[in-house]
C-alpha cells in the first residue's frame, strides 16, 4: 500500500492529473484534495472536463499522467470495482431488464456476497431511499425521480467510501430536481460519506456543496466554500459564472476621488470607500467593477452616490422582480422584491452596495 503522509487525511486526493484524448488535452495538471466526509461539487459549463475528471476518479478512464489516491491508497491503476466508489449517472443507467431489486443487488451478486448480506443491504438502502414498494418493478415502470433514487440506491448498497454523482438531476424537471436535491443533501447529512458531485447547475452547487470546484477547460479556477465563491470570486470567470442573472460588470479605471479611491467608467464615478480591500487599489489601474443584481438598490440609498437609470425590461418572477436597466451606456440587471413593479421606460435612481462588490484587474482578471 502506498500510504503517503501528504494524502492520508484526505479521502480522495488527485495529484498532477492530466488526461488527453489523442491530441486534445482535457485535464491539465490537476490537483485536488477532498476531505473525508466532504461534499464537493465540480461545477463548470458543458465540455469543461467535469465528467472526464469523475470518470478518472472512478477508474473508467485511464489518466495520461498523475495519480489518484482514495483513502490514502494509490488507485491510479485499480479497476473501478476495487476503488471503493459508487457512481450515479445522469441517465440513471439502470439495467432495463432487471427489477429494481436485481438492479440494486447486481454488483453484490457479481462480487459473490452471501445472499443474506445482500438482502440486508438492499433492505437498508431501499428503506433509506423509500423505494421498498418499487423493488419488484422494472425501470421502465418508474418515474424519473424514482429511477434516480434507485440509481443512488445502487451506489448505496455497495457500502463505499466515496460517492460520485455525474449530473444526477439534469434529466428531471425543475420541481423534481429541487425535491431530489433536498433528498441528496439529507442523505449526505445522515451518511456522512465523501461525495463528489458534478453539475452545471449553480443552484445545485451552491445549495449542496461544502466546497465547490469551478472548472474551465480542464483547470480548476477556484476551490472554496459556496459563500466565498459567491461573495469573493477569485477571478472574472468565476464571478460571471456564478449567480443568475450574472454579476454586472463595468469596465473602467481607478481614480482618486477626494479622500479615497473611486471607480470611473464612461465618465461616471463610483466611490469605493466601502470596498473591503480598498487598500490594494491604486489609481490609474484599469479594472472591472462587478456588482451583483441584488446589491444594486432601486430608489433606496444604501450609501454612496445615486445614479440615474431607465427601466428597459421588467421580468417579474414571482418572489423577485428582475429589472434590466439602461445606465450610462450599459445594461444592468437589478433584482428587486417581487411585489415592486415598474413601468418600462420609468426613470429610477440606483445605489450600489460597494461593501459586497468585487473589483478585478482588467488584465489578469483576478480579484483585487
Amino acid at each position: 500500500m502506498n500510504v503517503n503522509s501528504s494524502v492520508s487525511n484526505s479521502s480522495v486526493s488527485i495529484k498532477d492529473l492530466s488526461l488527453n484524448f489523442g491530441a486534445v488535452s482535457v485535464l491539465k495538471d490537476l490537483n485536488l484534495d477532498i476531505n473525508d466526509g466532504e461534499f464537493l461539487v465540480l461545477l463548470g459549463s458543458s465540455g469543461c472536463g467535469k465528467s472526464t475528471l469523475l470518470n478518472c476518479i472512478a477508474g473508467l478512464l485511464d489518466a495520461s499522467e498523475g495519480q489518484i489516491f482514495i483513502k490514502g491508497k494509490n488507485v491510479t491503476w485499480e479497476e473501478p470495482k476495487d476503488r471503493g466508489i459508487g457512481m450515479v449517472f445522469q441517465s440513471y443507467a439502470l439495467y432495463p431488464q432487471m427489477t429494481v431489486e436485481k438492479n440494486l443487488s447486481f454488483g453484490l451478486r457479481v462480487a459473490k456476497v452471501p445472499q443474506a448480506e445482500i438482502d440486508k443491504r438492499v433492505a437498508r438502502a431501499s428503506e433509506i431511499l423509500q423505494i421498498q414498494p418499487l423493488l419488484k418493478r422494472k425501470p421502465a415502470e418508474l418515474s424519473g425521480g424514482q429511477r434516480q433514487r434507485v440509481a443512488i440506491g445502487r451506489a448505496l448498497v455497495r457500502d463505499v467510501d466515496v460517492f460520485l454523482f455525474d449530473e444526477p438531476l439534469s434529466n428531471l424537471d425543475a420541481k423534481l430536481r429541487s425535491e431530489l436535491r433536498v433528498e441528496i443533501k439529507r442523505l449526505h447529512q445522515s451518511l456522512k460519506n465523501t461525495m463528489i458531485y458534478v453539475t452545471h447547475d449553480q443552484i445545485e452547487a451552491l445549495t449542496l456543496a461544502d466546497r465547490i470546484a469551478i472548472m474551465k477547460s480542464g483547470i480548476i479556477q477556484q476551490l472554496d466554500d459556496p459563500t466565498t465563491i459567491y461573495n469573493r470570486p477569485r477571478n472574472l470567470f468565476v464571478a460571471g459564472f456564478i449567480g443568475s442573472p450574472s454579476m454586472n460588470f463595468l469596465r473602467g479605471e481607478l481614480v482618486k476621488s477626494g479622500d479615497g479611491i473611486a471607480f470611473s467608467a464612461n465618465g461616471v464615478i463610483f466611490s469605493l470607500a466601502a470596498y473591503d480591500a480598498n487598500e490594494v487599489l491604486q489609481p490609474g489601474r484599469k479594472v472591472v467593477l462587478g456588482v451583483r443584481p441584488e446589491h444594486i438598490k432601486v430608489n433606496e440609498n444604501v450609501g454612496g452616490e445615486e445614479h440615474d437609470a431607465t427601466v428597459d425590461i421588467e421580468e417579474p418572477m414571482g418572489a423577485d422582480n428582475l429589472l434590466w436597466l439602461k445606465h450610462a451606456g450599459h445594461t444592468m440587471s437589478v433584482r428587486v422584491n417581487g411585489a415592486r413593479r415598474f413601468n418600462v421606460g420609468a426613470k429610477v435612481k440606483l445605489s450600489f452596495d460597494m461593501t459586497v462588490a468585487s473589483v478585478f484587474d482588467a488584465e489578469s482578471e483576478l480579484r483585487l
Partner: protein
Amino acid sequence: MTGQAQAGRPIKLLRNLNAKIASIPMILTALVIFVGGTFWTVFYSFTNSKLLPRLSFVGIDQYERLWAAPRWVTAIENLALYGVLSLIFSLVIGFMLAALMDQKIRFENTFRTIFLYPFALSFIVTGLVWQWVLNPDFGIQSVVRSMGWTSFTFNPLYTPEIVIYGILIAALWQGTGLVMCLMLAGLRGIDEDIWKAARVDGIPMWKTYLFIVIPMMRPVFITTIVIIASGIVKVYDLVVAQTSGGPGISSEVPAKYVYDYMFQAQNLGQGFAASTMMLVTVAIIIVPWAYLEFGGGRKRG
C-alpha cells in the same frame, strides 16, 4: 511519488485482457484471411501459376493479357453499367417505396413483407425465376404475343445489347426491399419537427423530401450505398443462374471472369490478376470512405 505510481502501472498489453482474447477471432480473420489472403493473391498474380500456385514470376504479363482480353473489358463495362444503374435505381425505388410507406398507410406490414420477401431468396433462386419469367418462349413475351400483339418483343436474356437490363430487373427485385427498409428506418429517424416546420413554411411535400429530408438522411444513404455497392462488386450467382454470362460474353462480370479463369481455365495467375484489379477498384472506392467513417474514431463521453 511518480516512481510509486509507475511501479503500480500494469503492463499495457494485459489491460482489458479479456477484450483482447475475445477479439482474437476477429483479429485472425482480419489479418490472416483478409490481409494475408489478399496479399497472397496479389503476390501470386505476378506469377504464371496454372492449376496450382507456383512461384515463377512473369512480371505484369498477366495484367497485360487481362486488359487485352475483350471479355474482361466487357465484364468491366458491364459492371460499371450494372453498378451505376442498380445503385441509382435501388436508391430511387427504395426511397420512393419507403416514402410511400411512411405516409401512415394501412396494411403497412403487408406491403413491407411483400417488398422485402425477395431478399430472403438467394440469387440462384432469383436468377432462375427471372430466367423463367423473361424466357421468350414461355414468359412475358409469349404471353403478350398470345394476347394478340404478335410483334411484341421483350427478350432481354437472349439479346446481347440489353441482357444486362434483364439482370438488373432481377437484381432490383431481390434487393430493393432491403433498401426500402433502410430508408424507412432513416425516415422514421427524422425529427418530427422538421416536417412541421416545412408545413408551416408552406413547402410542398415533394420539395420537403428533395431539399430537406434526403440531405438529412446522408448517413443512411451512405450505409445503404455501402451495402449495395459491396453486393454489386461481388455479383456472380445471379449472372450464373440467369444467363451464365451469355449470350456470348455480353453479360459477363468480373467476379465470373475471376472464377472461370481460376478454376475452369486453370490459370490461377490470370484469375489472381483479375481479382487484384477488382480489389484495386474496391479500394479506390472504399478506403476513403472507411477512413472517414471509422478511421477518425467516434467521439464518446
